[in-house]
């Protein structure tokens, strides 16, 4: 038996997608023209699946900051944060993040994935408990497994279930750290954070909120769901990423926890990887500045998200529970999701396919993400393509009765 034979079943499925010439997991854009437009071969594609929520990837000020940094500081740091890869820019970005969140401490990681790995593995020791929402992102599960704490799941977005599980641990030695997300990346639903905060307080647990998809999206100043729900004081740790609303790559954690900086010499995903290049750091710093400077980006994003969600809903698609920049249509099965995705792309619209076990309740999803950079005309064009292809495939009612609703 060959080494990779254990993946035979998966390889067969993957091969089928390749043969069909439409593999959602292996698309390459030949040219990207803007936050919302690209070219594949000779065809123009409208992008509706990039997580580029505020469209900052082509912001002139952000690009200029990245160019300047490369010219003055070079292409890479060639070192890790604790050895030889900390520049003034890394410190400056950490200060900017701490200032943005009104927190004492901030740590920058090389990706959002590593931020969860680095924080969760370091925070919880052998006798501690990590209490995870069942629908947590893979980085939360992986970060929990990287450490030595006990890991317990509670039912997704269910404060009563969290209460029950923390109750079972009453009297058990060790700290309890509850982990939830601001916006869940698969269905776009957000956590009932006020209720979670209450449960957390009642049991004397700590709370970590991953705002990867909600930074720059929710809250009066874009700080995320904790700000929107008015429970920032209860969130002991906030983790986030630069790779969505900030249009770059990298991750961070902010906190008021006394002694937080010791994690810099404890957290292995922080210590044993190269630090972010100067261009990325400068771009993230400028993008954060742009979020603070231009709340209208967030308002436009929410407007676009609500328009698209309402439009798909009126067409008869079954969606996640609430409008958000992540809008997922629930498909009957993975084959239909692949076919729909492929037909949408053929019609000039790029979206995503999300499948179990990455999705909750074994759902097959046709996932879209909306950007502030989409014009109203582009949102309406996307809706038209969904309507045409969806009707052709019999996924939604053929009648036009709902089209103008």
């Amino acid at each position: 038996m060959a080494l990779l034979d254990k993946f035979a079943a998966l390889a067969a499925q993957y091969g089928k997608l390749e043969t069909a010439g439409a593999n959602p997991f292996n698309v390459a854009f030949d040219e990207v023209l803007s936050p919302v437009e690209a070219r594949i071969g000779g065809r123009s594609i409208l992008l509706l699946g990039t997580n580029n929520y505020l469209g900052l990837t082509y912001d002139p000020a952000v690009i200029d900051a990245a160019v300047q940094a490369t010219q003055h500081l070079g292409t890479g740091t060639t070192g890790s944060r604790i050895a030889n890869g900390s520049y003034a820019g890394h410190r400056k970005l950490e200060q900017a993040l701490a200032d943005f969140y009104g927190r004492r401490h901030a740590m920058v990681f090389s990706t959002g994935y590593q931020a969860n790995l680095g924080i969760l593995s370091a925070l919880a020791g052998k006798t501690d408990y990590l209490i995870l929402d069942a629908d947590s992102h893979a980085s939360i599960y992986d970060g929990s497994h990287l450490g030595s704490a006990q890991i317990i799941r509670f039912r997704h977005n269910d404060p009563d279930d969290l209460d029950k599980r923390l109750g079972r641990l009453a009297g058990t030695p060790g700290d309890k750290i509850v982990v939830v997300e601001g916006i869940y990346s698969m269905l776009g639903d957000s956590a009932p954070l006020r209720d979670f905060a209450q449960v957390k307080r009642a049991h004397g647990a700590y709370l970590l909120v991953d705002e990867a998809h909600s930074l720059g999206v929710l809250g009066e100043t874009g700080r995320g769901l904790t700000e929107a729900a008015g429970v920032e004081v209860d969130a002991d740790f906030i983790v986030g990423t630069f790779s969505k609303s900030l249009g770059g790559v990298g991750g961070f954690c902010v906190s008021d926890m006394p002694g937080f900086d010791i994690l810099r010499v404890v957290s292995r995903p922080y210590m044993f990887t190269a630090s972010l290049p100067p261009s990325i750091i400068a771009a993230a710093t400028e993008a954060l500045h742009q979020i603070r400077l231009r709340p209208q980006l967030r308002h436009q994003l929410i407007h676009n998200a609500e328009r698209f969600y309402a439009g798909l809903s009126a067409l008869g698609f079954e969606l996640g529970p609430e409008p958000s920049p992540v809008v997922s249509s629930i498909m009957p099965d993975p084959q239909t999701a692949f076919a729909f995705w492929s037909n949408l792309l053929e019609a000039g619209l790029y979206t995503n396919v999300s499948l179990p076990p990455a999705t909750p309740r074994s759902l097959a999803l046709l996932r879209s993400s909306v950007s502030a950079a989409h014009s109203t005309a582009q949102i309406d064009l996307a809706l038209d393509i969904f309507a045409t292809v969806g009707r052709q495939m019999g996924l939604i009612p053929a009648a036009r009765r709902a089209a103008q609703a």
Partner: protein
Amino acid sequence: MNTSVTDIHETVFGMLRAKLEKPIALTDDTHIVNELGLDSVAVMDFVMEIEDRLDISVPLDRIAEVETLGDLVATVRALKGVQ
């Protein structure tokens, strides 16, 4: 609530039978992933149902050690304090 050795065995097997779409003969040696076709998340979700029924919490590292239904029953009994 069922908490004797036999009762826990019956509870786990009964809950699983109710969940499976087609009837499969279940024994202590049945391999949960290979024979029942449950993926990693489906296994965790099934364990969550057991947790609710028996009022226990099963840490994920304990689930990771489980391969067969017999392993699962033994783990649940240990956490319930029933040997």
